[in-house]
């Protein structure tokens, strides 16, 4: 309790000192403002990217295994997969017959073609041949019209479902349903428009809004069957763990491909989590670099505060002498200056935070959905106070160690 009274006094002096030197304080806090603004914006941007990514990736389904020739995320030598055979459509049928437990199995293939409606062209669009089962694999659904049906697949219908960006590019605001558009050289009828997935196909990842879905049968007819690789999506039943089910899929695929025990798999099993962890690795490094850079700006701001605190201590040398002469202990003087420096930094931090809210507003308006979360606010506040304490420590320590007589004599 006793310690409390001089602490309250220290806080009072600190606030009075800041009030008395407003313009100096403003200049000093500028470094902290910029530092906190940078830190918060970095973290918010990273968060926003992460959310966009997760939203995008959720299209893949968390309980779906994707069998393909190459892994999605390649570590090491890319060319080791060169000699692998493509997956064939009939392997998908065999797998379906063997994996009775699977909820659904969906073969798909893709190609890049220009799509065209009247004079509107979109180059390099990803055309995906798939089946009605696609709807079981993903969370995304058509916003308008319908998806491909088994009927479309069976009768090789020239119909397509387009992504939101394709719709916007080719049809603008006009109705797309039942319009005929060109995919490559062939004419397809639009039967559905997918809902928007997310704005960014960043890091070269797939942009789900720039895709066009067609029945796999008409796809192979239009774009060829020979040398075409397929991917097989296998939806795991809810009662088994994905890891166990993966063993099952591997086992059946090895049987289908007649691999001897000594032979390595000549196919890869992918799942959403691999992309997530690959993303986390990449993002972790980017965020780290971002934080180091912004940390440097905060450090520079902290140096500015330290400098001002030295000035403050020197200016108040006589006052420190008076306080010590009438019984202020070292801790009381120390806390007086630590309060001053951390309050300066806290004010800077709060201003930085307010600016960061503005910047985040701009980001979410023009770039991607982003918002400042409560933990980020807490971190920003904590970091700014910490910066204040750290940069005030040496000046405060110097003040607390002053000999009362020397301090009183200071002119």
């Amino acid at each position, binding site marked *: *309790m*006793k*310690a409390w*009274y*001089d602490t309250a*006094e220290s806080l009072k002096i600190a606030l*009075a000192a800041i009030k*008395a030197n407003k313009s100096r304080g403003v200049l000093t806090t500028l470094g902290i403002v910029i530092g906190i603004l940078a830190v918060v914006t970095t973290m918010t941007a990273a968060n926003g990217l992460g959310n966009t990514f997760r939203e995008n990736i959720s299209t893949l389904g968390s309980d779906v295994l994707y069998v393909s020739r190459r892994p999605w995320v390649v570590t090491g030598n890319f060319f080791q997969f060169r000699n692998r055979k493509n997956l064939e459509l009939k392997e998908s049928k065999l797998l379906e017959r063997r994996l009775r437990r699977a909820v659904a199995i969906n073969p798909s293939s893709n190609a890049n073609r220009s799509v065209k409606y009247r004079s509107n062209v979109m180059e390099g669009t990803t055309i995906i041949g798939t089946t009605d089962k696609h709807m079981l694999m993903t969370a995304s659904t058509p916003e308008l019209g319908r998806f491909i049906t088994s009927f479309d697949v069976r009768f090789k219908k020239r119909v397509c479902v387009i992504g939101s960006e394709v719709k916007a590019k080719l049809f603008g605001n006009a109705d797309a349903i039942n319009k005929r558009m060109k995919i490559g050289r062939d004419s397809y009828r639009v039967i559905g428009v997918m809902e928007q997935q997310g704005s960014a196909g960043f890091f070269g990842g797939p942009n789900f809004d720039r895709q066009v879905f067609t029945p796999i049968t008409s796809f192979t007819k239009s774009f060829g069957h020979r040398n075409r690789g397929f991917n097989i999506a296998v939806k795991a039943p809810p009662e088994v763990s994905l890891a166990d089910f993966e063993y099952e899929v591997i086992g059946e695929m090895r049987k289908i491909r007649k691999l001897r025990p000594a032979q390595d798999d000549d196919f890869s099993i992918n799942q959403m989590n691999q992309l997530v962890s690959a993303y986390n690795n990449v993002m972790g490094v980017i965020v780290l670099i971002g934080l180091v850079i912004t940390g440097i700006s905060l450090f520079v701001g902290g140096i500015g505060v330290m400098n001002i605190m030295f000035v403050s201590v020197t200016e108040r040398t*006589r*006052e420190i*002498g*008076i*306080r*010590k*002469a*009438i*019984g*202020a*202990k*070292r*801790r*009381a003087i120390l806390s007086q200056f630590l309060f001053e420096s951390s309050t300066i930094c806290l004010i800077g931090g709060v201003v930085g935070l307010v600016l960061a809210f503005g910047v985040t507003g701009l980001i979410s308006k023009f770039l991607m959905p982003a918002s400042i979360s409560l933990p980020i606010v807490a971190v920003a506040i904590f970091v700014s106070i910490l910066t204040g304490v750290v940069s005030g420590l040496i000046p405060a320590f110097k003040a607390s*160690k002053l*000999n*009362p*007589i020397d301090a*009183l004599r200071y002119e």
Partner: protein
Amino acid sequence: MALRITDVSKTYQMGVEEVHALQEVSITIEDNEYVAIMGPSGSGKSTMMNVLGCLDTPTSGEYHLAGEDVSKMNDDQLAEIRNQKIGFVFQTFNLIPRASVFHNVELPLVYGGVAPAQRADMTNAAIGKVALEDRKTHKPSELSGGQRQRVAIARALVNNPAIILADEPTGNLDSVTGEEIMAIFDGLHKAGNTIILVTHEKDVAEHASRIIRLKDGRVESDLVTQRPESRFGEVLA
């Protein structure tokens, strides 16, 4: 609460030269004594007061305050002694410019850990003793020199310390104001405090019952006046 310094020396190192501000000074001052310290400029009066007031530590020698060896104490222990046992009045007042009269006087209680309610009572009492009740909210810059010194005295006695030290308390004041200040010290002495003050002025020294003269950092004379009424004649004639 007797003060006893034994063979106290204070040496300042000025480049290669050593300044001996105090040289093996030994003095004992008993409770409720009224002591004036005199001597020419540079004789070590302030140095001795600072040692007695625990503001400074001697280069060598011992200082016992109420039986406790002060010369072995650390910074914070000395701060506590200054806060609890000693009230110090400076020639240049040494008030905190931004703080009000009330807050200046209250400050030793704040650092002494006295609860706010009790603090206000003690502060008001101390301000009452120097008759500044109507100046409580003023800043030091809004006061006359004599009023400032009264604030400083109120601050020195707010904690009811046994010992009041004053280094030339009237040095910056005219003689009439100086007499007012000395009247306050006389009252404190009557109330039982030990008073030690440094002065150049005979009229001021006249208030004390013992006069210690320093010269070149040594005690030149140490005289006790038996009858306060005739002190002037006896000591200074």
